[in-house]
């Protein structure tokens, strides 16, 4: 028996320090499970970029009023369906402060459309940190300062204007506030229900499990959208924008939980027989404590990954409902509400920029999918 420097006793034939070194002293082995997961996630380049992008988006939401040059419902009667304006820095071969060319519109009565011409002789510099439409920073602090505004006697429509002369760029920013949060509220409700039903079905089993299983099967067998439509048609038309917003998120969440409940139930079934659960039971822990303290933490991260993968369907759901006129309603601004205006082929053909809100939808949904996939892979290295 030999005593090693670190206090372990080993038989002489087992004294192979180089082997122990490779087993225990790799930097990997010293990291906690969470650090390992994080590291595997970071190696997923696309997922990491998506996560950073989404985080930036959500952090910017309270500052939307500051970034947007116009208010969400500010109308500009003289610039209906104005095309996107570019911000230039070169004029006549010389470098200028960022400026726009003023545009003026004319109704083309022969084709029933608006034609705009840019006056390229009179560049107008943008104003910075300027007073404009009043807004509330983070919904609390009233302010009038905008990051940039249009020059005094012209407009700056980065992504064009819509049928009422409202700035599409500003509206997309404001729309993000509702479109991005509707998924979060919905997923919170869905997770609450899913964990609750999944946990009691998986923990108690028996008749309760049977009943919940049937409920899940029934809910999963009904097409979501028609049911969403039916439920949102039941939202009273006199409700304010905030109530409608919450009603819609609840509706989206109400039908989403069965998938999650199923996953939770399966996990609970396999974990229920583990020694640590029986130990807790024998020490007299109540079911609610066992579920919350001993079982749920085992797959908290899996829940987060599956939540990230469910958010896209909620964002798309809100968009579809609003697009059909049964979701959020004007004056609330969401990407779906904006697309409601772009319903007609003619408007997409003549004024393609009215369909621009589809870009942020696609990008955000893709980002959530990539991030969710990356999270799942990082949590289950064996399954990739």
């Amino acid at each position, binding site marked *: 028996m030999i005593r090693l420097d670190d206090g372990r006793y080993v038989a002489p034939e087992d004294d192979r320090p180089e082997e122990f070194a490779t087993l225990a002293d790799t930097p990997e082995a010293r990291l906690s499970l969470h650090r390992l997961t994080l590291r595997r996630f970071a190696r997923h380049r696309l997922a990491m970029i998506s996560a950073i992008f989404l985080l930036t988006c959500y952090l910017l939401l309270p500052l939307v009023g500051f970034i947007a040059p116009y208010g969400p419902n500010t109308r500009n009667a003289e610039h209906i369906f104005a095309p996107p304006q570019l911000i230039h820095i070169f004029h006549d071969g010389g470098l200028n402060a960022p400026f726009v060319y003023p545009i003026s519109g004319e109704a083309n009565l022969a084709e029933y459309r608006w034609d705009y011409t840019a006056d390229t002789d009179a560049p107008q510099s943008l104003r910075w940190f300027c007073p404009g439409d009043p807004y509330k920073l983070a919904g609390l602090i009233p302010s009038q300062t905008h990051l940039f505004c249009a020059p005094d006697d012209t407009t700056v429509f980065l992504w064009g204007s819509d049928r009422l002369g409202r700035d599409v760029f500003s509206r997309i920013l404001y729309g993000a506030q509702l479109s991005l949060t509707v998924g979060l509220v919905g997923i919170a409700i869905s997770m609450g229900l899913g964990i609750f039903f999944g946990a009691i079905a998986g923990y108690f089993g028996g008749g309760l499990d049977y009943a919940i299983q049937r409920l899940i099967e029934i809910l*999963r067998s009904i097409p979501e959208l028609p049911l969403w*439509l039916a439920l949102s048609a039941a939202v009273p038309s006199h409700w304010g924008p905030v109530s409608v917003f919450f009603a819609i998120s609840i509706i989206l969440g109400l039908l989403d939980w069965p998938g999650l409940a199923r996953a939770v139930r399966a996990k609970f079934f396999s974990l229920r027989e583990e020694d640590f659960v029986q130990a807790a039971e024998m020490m007299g822990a109540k079911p609610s404590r066992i579920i919350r303290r001993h079982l749920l933490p085992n797959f908290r991260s899996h829940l987060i990954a599956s939540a990230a993968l469910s958010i*896209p369907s909620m964002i798309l759901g809100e968009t*579809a409902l609003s697009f059909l006129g049964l979701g959020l309603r004007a004056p609330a601004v969401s990407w779906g509400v904006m697309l409601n205006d772009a319903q007609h082929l003619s408007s997409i053909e003549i004024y393609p920029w009215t*369909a621009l809100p*589809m870009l942020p*939808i696609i990008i955000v949904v893709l980002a959530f999918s990539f991030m969710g996939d990356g999270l799942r892979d990082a949590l289950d290295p064996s399954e990739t």
Partner: protein
Amino acid sequence: MKLLLYIGSRTVSMLLTLLVVSALIFLIINLPPGDYLTNQLAELRATGQEAGVAKAEFLRHEYALDQPLWRQYLIWLGAAPGPHGFNGLLQGQFGWSFEFSAPVSEIVGEALWLTILLNLSTIVFVYVMALTLGVIAAVKARSWIDYTTAFIGYLGLATPNFLLALILFYYGHKYLDLPIGGLMAPEFENEPMSFEKARSILAHLIIPTFVVGTAGAAAMMQRLRASLLDELSRPYVETAIAKGMPPARMLVKYPLRAALNPFVADIGTLLPAMISGSVLVSVVLGLQTIGPALLTALKTQDQFLAAFILVFVAFLTLIGTLVSDVLLAMLDPRIRIGEKRK
């Protein structure tokens, strides 16, 4: 024999599910306060049209809207006698549409068949696309084909159906000269079926099928690719190749068969999503399926029409799931002997 027994038990449980679903749907439809006629009554009273009021009151009684909700449901279902005896869904009477002042069966008549047609063609599209692309992506994993299909798949999942519909619609018409709007050329509407009409319907089906099917095909393709990749790394594949079996034959004979089970089982999750998609796309593209009628009915609280369409949609889904269950039982003997699937 076992298989027949299995089919029987699945059918019974499907019918029970349908019963629960119909109750749920009836409840949801009646969530908003009032009904089509009370709204009309209020309007008539406000404008002082007493004759109209009497008529609406009469209609309310005629359609049992003055009864408690549970009784209304039973009457609608045909399980309890209404003012005119048993004439509900069970007796094949679909009810009356107040908005269109016509029997529901008349309004949805042709639309039902077109809905089934659209969904059938979408299923075929999804399976053909997912099968071919999924196999190619798995065999040529990490090649440009794999990455391109994965990218298109992700885009298909992320683009809202209705937008894809609008865009394809526009470009399909502009560059490929595909017909726009509806499910058939206007001159064939309400015409009996003929060769020309069938051809017109087929041409009009291309874009909707593509739009509704893309997301489902993308998801399914990815799953088939994953399960096929699993199989391809097994030793038996290596053995087969080592023995000199032609790769294509080997692929079809062993790994593909093993990877096909989840593929068939998936239809249960695929179908609800597809029917949802077809409703949405029908509204956008103005297809004569039940989609637009459902939207109108929901907006005007035309309860019998809305409830019937929703029940029909659920019925379609359940039938689809039943078919997939039976197929799966034929493919996989473990299921029909009653062994639990893991």
